[in-house]
């Protein structure tokens, strides 16, 4: 039996001339782990949403969308909530309640499930996903990875037979992504839930996928499940110290609260001028904190910070939205034109580089997550900072976008910028960094030239 079946489906948004989907037919068998791959704007989300009538976009739909043999348009909200689960992209936006237990119970409360049954389902789902240790935590205190697992749990607790996920890992770091996908795969195999994932990075799910479809120009074709990702090409530059004028810190101790644990404990770091330094280490080891301390926006309780480039630095935060404050993409790039000494011509060139020349008048928030990330980086590079601090610059980016970031970092560096980047993306580190520092337990454990670091490493080679 097919879990999801599209029969000659065409769809056009209300008010749009051209349809986003044209005569699409596909079948996802029951128990499959299916991928919908395709570039941003290819209609992946639209396709998923058509199978969930409560959140289907407004527009003209032709053809049949069937879930386990039944037309979804005949579903009432209750039947749809029981049959089809949906996980969204953004870990911040899709959490509704303030505590984990309330979030998990939310869907069941909506469906009027009696309390004893509700308890049982919540307990079983928590056991399956290993949520129990943080079951009574506040959702505001969770990491992005935990929030996304909670979103998965809140969908699974309703016991759907079909689970649709729209770019579920694009805002997670690679470790959290692996965790999430492993849990998703277990749900697929052990609970026999049919999984359909829309993604622009199908390679990351290569180990799990049983079938894949590619969307392009409004049509869909089945493709072979993707293979493991290829390596990023190394940007050919050699490190030439511009001599002196770097930044550094000595014996820095920092904690966020008087009773909290030390995030940085006696940390020392020396950054030469003109160097590209990568900072690697597990989640929550203090990489972002270190960047903020070096930027001078966080003051350590003890220790000294020296930064000869403090007058000309720029920080790319983990969430690019914290940097985007204007109504249009063009205005965004123009914001710092006076201080940066650039004008319309440079902005036009930047738009061209980003492939956003047609989107100059769009709202930055209407761009995809990856495009927002690139836009934020471009905005920083336009002011030609001498010190560039990047926090997870490749998070949620596909291969070509990661290569673009690597190229832009190399260009900035050949202009004389010093770069410190915190990342989980080791391929990216290999492609751009001169030196790598491994951060652990609030301090730098080892710093080595990139090639040496990888050849000496047991874990990262």
């Amino acid at each position, binding site marked *: 039996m097919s879990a999801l079946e599209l029969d000659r489906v065409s769809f056009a948004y209300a008010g749009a001339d051209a349809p986003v989907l044209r005569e699409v037919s596909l079948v996802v068998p029951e128990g499959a782990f299916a991928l919908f791959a395709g570039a941003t704007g290819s209609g992946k989300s639209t396709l998923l949403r058509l199978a969930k009538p409560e959140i289907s976009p407004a527009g003209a739909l032709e053809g049949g969308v069937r879930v386990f043999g039944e037309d979804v348009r005949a579903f009432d909200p209750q039947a749809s*909530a029981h049959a089809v689960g949906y996980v969204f992209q953004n870990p911040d936006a899709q959490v*509704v309640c303030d505590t984990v237990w309330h979030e998990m119970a939310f869907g069941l409360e909506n469906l009027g499930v009696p309390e004893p049954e509700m308890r049982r389902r919540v307990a079983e789902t928590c056991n399956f996903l290993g949520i129990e240790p943080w079951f009574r935590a506040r959702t505001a205190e969770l990491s992005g990875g935990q929030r996304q697992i909670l979103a998965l749990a809140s969908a699974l607790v309703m016991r759907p037979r079909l689970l649709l996920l729209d770019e579920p890992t694009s805002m997670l770091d690679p470790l959290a992504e692996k965790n999430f996908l492993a849990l998703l795969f277990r749900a697929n195999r052990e609970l026999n839930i049919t999984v359909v994932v829309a993604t622009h990075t199908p390679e990351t799910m290569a180990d799990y996928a049983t079938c894949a479809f590619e969307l392009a120009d409004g049509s869909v074709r089945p493709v072979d499940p993707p293979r493991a990702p290829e390596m990023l090409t190394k940007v050919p530059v050699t490190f030439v110290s511009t001599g002196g004028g770097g930044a550094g810190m000595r014996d820095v101790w920092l904690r966020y609260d008087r009773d909290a644990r030390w995030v940085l404990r006696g940390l020392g770091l020396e950054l030469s001028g003109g160097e590209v330094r990568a900072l690697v280490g597990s989640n929550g080891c203090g990489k972002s904190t270190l960047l903020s301390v070096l930027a001078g*926006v966080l003051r350590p309780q003890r220790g000294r910070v020296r930064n000869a480039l403090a007058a000309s630095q720029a920080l790319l935060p983990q969430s690019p939205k914290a940097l985007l404050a204007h109504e249009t993409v063009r205005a965004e790039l123009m914001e710092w034109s006076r201080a940066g000494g650039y004008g319309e011509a440079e902005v036009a060139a930047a738009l061209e580089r980003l492939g956003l020349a047609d989107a100059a008048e769009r709202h930055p928030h209407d761009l995809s997550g990856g495009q927002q990330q690139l836009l934020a980086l471009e905005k920083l590079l336009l002011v030609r900072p001498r010190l560039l601090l990047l926090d997870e610059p490749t998070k949620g980016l596909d291969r070509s976008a990661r290569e673009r970031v690597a190229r832009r970092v190399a260009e900035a560096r050949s202009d004389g910028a010093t770069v410190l980047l915190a990342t989980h993306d080791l391929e990216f580190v290999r492609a751009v960094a001169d030196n790598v520092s491994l951060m652990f337990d609030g301090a730098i454990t080892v710093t080595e030239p990139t090639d040496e670091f990888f050849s000496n490493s047991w874990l990262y080679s």
Partner: protein
Amino acid sequence: MAPARFIPFGTCHAAVPATLFAGVVALSMLAVHPVFVGISLAGALAFSLAVRGAAATARGLVWQLPLLALVCLLNPLFSASGSTLLFKLGTRSVYLESLAYGATMGALMVAVVLWFEGAAAVLAQDRLLALAGGRARALPLVTSMALQLVPQLLGRARTARSTLAACTAAGPRPRLRDELVRTSTMLLTWSLEDSVERADAMRARGWESGVPRTQYRPERLRGCDTAALAGIAALLVLCATCAWAACSSWRFYPTMRGLAPWWLYLPFALLAALPVMTMVTGTFVTICHEGGCR
């Protein structure tokens, strides 16, 4: 390592401490009687010292004691009643009775504030909200959403402002007013965009599905909770009766008289001491357990 701090009422249903504190506060406010107010203040102060610690209590008293003094001194200016003339302030006479009434009211206010602070320290908001059943079902959900969104909003504001501060290459930092406008516009767009996805996430999980909602309660009312509730209710009734008897004989004006026999105050003293006694015995038991385990 020090043993984990004991939190009183952590192991019983939230209804038990909620009833206890509501009862104590209600009685404190209704029984305007120097002895009752004194007992309530002593109980609240002891409980606050026990659960919040000396430093936090002292920080509160820094504004609470002046408030007490202010109410005490202001009352004679508004009500010139009484018989024991202390002194004259311009044309107004200040009587001892009127001063005592002011002191009682001031102490009452401080006691109520202290009870609320102590209760908040042991009763988390979500436990309290879960008590709202029946018709107020939308209330816990709405409050829950707000409690989730406020920290998120504040966190984002901090990130946005510190990012701008870190980008020194973008020129001098804008004036505070401009920066606040920039940050709030940014947060508004960001939240609005999130709210679209959040609304979808709610609908995808059966929100507005037309079925009457049920409620998941994280705590269950057990037999011992019911027993504790019954005990507290009985004690409250006894206290109310005694308080009524004591207050109806008591007069502030023209002279203070009509003090009831001592045993009429005993039940309320027991009630006011109950929270701190729970704390002290609980801590003692915890320490003994920890010691026994080693």
